[in-house]
């Protein structure tokens, strides 16, 4: 038995933050500067009380409706986010009930970030190919805005909140199967992109709350990013990642119809594209309207590529993710 990606839907919170609004907060910035630096015009921001699992829930409901999926056929749910509801129980358990999935459904959380989507697909493929599941619902949903200090202009211009739902299903048709994965980890870069005060090591205490009292306390933690090091990491790791994905799938670069990377930053993506010598029309960027939506970025880009006809049925699409950890992974999928 093989696994393939059957359907993708996504949900954006209704409130958006435009470049114009950011410039009002940061008078030293211009709309053109922000766009040049990030390739983003607006990013959606969640509202108080609407967390990652809510966005994932809305995305799943959209998936069931848009693609006429019978929720009772789902036998495994993976919820991927860096903003879990609780330390216990697993948020995927709460989502099983909320989405009215069968109780014979497996449920796991995957607290990942930028590489969350490719990891979800990798795990779903393993579950299906080992006979443990038939229809895996992967929800990749993140709310980075809740861990960004309001004065961190670079982070506010980059990140947006979103939830995506992807259905991975068993098939006997090998031509549409999800390909082999290449993965990698280098935890020595952990400090360069980290949400401080978000877990059991160095948790938020009274001193922290007092320090950030004027911005609501930053009670879920504070994202800190060394942009130069992350940029260097991506330049260093992505070219060999792509070579490795192609080699594992016995494909040449010319046989890939479309490349869809984690939508980290449009400037970085275009530097990577040139470095990899991939033509512009085979490289998809979808950031203008949504920003960097962390684990939701690849499925959103895939959904948009399919919607606009850039990715057509039967196309081979190389997906590659890289970021927090450091971590990286990718594969080739067939639309």
């Amino acid at each position, binding site marked *: 038995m093989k696994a393939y990606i059957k359907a993708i839907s996504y949900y954006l919170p209704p409130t958006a933050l435009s470049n114009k609004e950011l410039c009002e907060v940061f008078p030293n910035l211009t709309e053109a*500067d922000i766009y040049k*630096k990030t390739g983003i015009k607006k990013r959606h921001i969640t509202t108080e009380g609407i967390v990652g699992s809510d966005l994932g829930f809305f995305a799943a409901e959209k998936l069931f409706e848009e693609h006429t999926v019978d929720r009772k056929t789902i036998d495994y749910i993976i919820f991927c986010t860096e903003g879990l509801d609780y330390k216990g129980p697993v948020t995927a358990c709460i989502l099983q009930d909320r989405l009215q999935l069968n109780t014979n459904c497996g449920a796991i959380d995957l607290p990942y970030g930028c590489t969350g989507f490719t990891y979800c697909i990798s795990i779903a493929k393993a579950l299906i190919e080992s006979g443990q599941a038939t229809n895996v619902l992967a929800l990749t949903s993140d709310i980075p805005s809740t861990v960004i200090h309001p004065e961190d202009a670079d982070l506010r211009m980059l990140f947006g909140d979103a939830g995506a739902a992807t259905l991975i299903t068993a098939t006997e048709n090998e031509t549409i199967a999800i390909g082999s994965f290449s993965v990698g980890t280098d935890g020595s870069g952990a400090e360069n992109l980290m949400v401080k005060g978000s877990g059991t090591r160095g948790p938020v205490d009274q001193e922290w709350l007092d320090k950030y009292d004027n911005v609501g306390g930053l009670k879920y933690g504070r994202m800190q990013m060394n*942009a*130069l090091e992350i*940029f260097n990491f991506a*330049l*260093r790791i992505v070219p060999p990642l792509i070579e490795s994905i192609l080699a594992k799938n016995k494909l040449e670069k010319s046989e890939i119809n479309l490349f869809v990377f984690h939508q980290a930053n449009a400037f*970085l993506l275009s530097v990577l594209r040139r470095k990899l010598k991939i033509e512009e029309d085979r490289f998809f960027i979808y950031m203008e309207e949504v920003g960097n939506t962390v684990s939701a970025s690849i499925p959103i880009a895939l959904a948009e590529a399919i919607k606009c006809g850039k990715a057509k049925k039967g196309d081979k699409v190389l997906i590659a993710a890289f970021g927090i950890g450091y971590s990286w992974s990718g594969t080739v999928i067939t639309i």
Partner: protein
Amino acid sequence: MDIHEFTKQIEAEFEEVEPGTITPTTNYREIKSWSSMYALIVIAFVDANFDVQLSADDLRNSQTIQDIYNIVMAKKTN
């Protein structure tokens, strides 16, 4: 690539900068339109042309275009 060509090409990468305003001794942080974006442009330029990675420390420890060029050359030799 000598220092003059290096300076010229870096200048061309900085779209907002008038041609001829940057010299090897220019303290790049004092360029009028300097922003953190320029650091990424410099890193990308050096990566593409020399296959050398400039770290955040390399940039922190340099002031002028000549300083960056020297770091690139030293890394290229090693």
